[in-house]
């Protein structure tokens, strides 16, 4: 909690609440970002990280936090940046990303 406060005061941005759910072949990331215009959300996808930024309505946050959301979300495994779907509904951004196929080699057990 203290770390989050430090990041917020250093960057002057709001760190939104977020949640990552892992399924067999994808990660479903949701970010609570009320007061944002859909077309102003900047979403960048990296090897195993999502970078999200968006200005929020100026009357919402206090002066303490600024009025921009910014968050970097680390994912446990590499993802496929070409297979990403995002939507913004009821103030929640949902990003669905496919995991990169593993390179495991099948070894016969003798």
């Amino acid at each position, binding site marked *: *909690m203290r770390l*989050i406060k430090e990041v917020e005061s250093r960057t002057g941005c*709001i760190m*939104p*609440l977020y*949640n990552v*759910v892992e399924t067999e072949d994808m990660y479903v990331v*949701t970010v*609570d970002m*009320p*007061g944002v215009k859909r077309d102003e959300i900047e979403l960048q996808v990296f090897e195993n990280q999502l970078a999200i930024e968006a200005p929020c*309505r100026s009357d*919402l*946050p206090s002066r303490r936090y600024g009025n921009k959301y910014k968050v970097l979300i680390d994912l446990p495994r590499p993802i496929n940046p070409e297979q990403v779907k995002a939507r913004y*509904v*009821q*103030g*929640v951004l*949902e990003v669905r990303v496919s995991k990169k196929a593993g390179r495991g080699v099948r070894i016969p057990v003798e």
Partner: protein
Amino acid sequence: MKPSFVEKVYSDFVFYDKLPAKVDKTLLVGFPDTGLVGAIAVSYLAEQLKPEEKGYVDSSELPPIIPVRRSEPKELIRIYERKNCVLIVSEIPIPPAFIRSFSESLLDWVEEKKIKDVICLTGVTEPRRIEIETPKVFVLSADVKRSEELARVLDAEVFTEGFVTGIHAEILRVGMRRGMDVSILLAQSHLNYPDPGAAAQLLNRLPKLVNEHVDVKQLLESEEMVRMQLRDLMRRTSEAMVQKSREMELPPVYR
């Protein structure tokens, strides 16, 4: 607070109140947990109905925090009284290690005060919450017939399968063992995000429950601000919920 409070010590928690010896009203509680649904509902209720503050709950296990509301320092867990109900408003989640003793203490106090029944307001995690405009409300009572009766009256559904965990589950369990009238109302909600929309669904049922009407328009209009303001409480609550889930070896969901 003033020395006229009656002090009653139950294990780790002390209840100080100015309530009469026989209350005979419904107790509404909503501690911070899933989507802060219950906490938002009872706080909004207290704000709108302006009930009389009648006491507080104290414990050495509570953190050294003093909430300030309109320049007035407040207790962390407060007891209010209205014509038809008693409310408990908590600013913090009950520490997971003390959920059990708090629940026992609460229901000792309920018995002592001859409170008619206990209704816990909370949320139940709905993974597809963003696709739902009007969350459903479920009822779970210590007695199945009571669940069915409440569901009928409140235009809700009986909670039939799954898990309910956390403070409200423990209050229900203790009530069940003691043969007390304890129920939980659960609205479909986000797990980790404050959900005023779900709280509004519970508040809409109150007229039929305790004959108290609150207009949820203001809550819904300020939904974005409420979500923004409650981020810190949600973070603290999520940490407590995850801790409790780990202890129970259940996934961090409430269902």
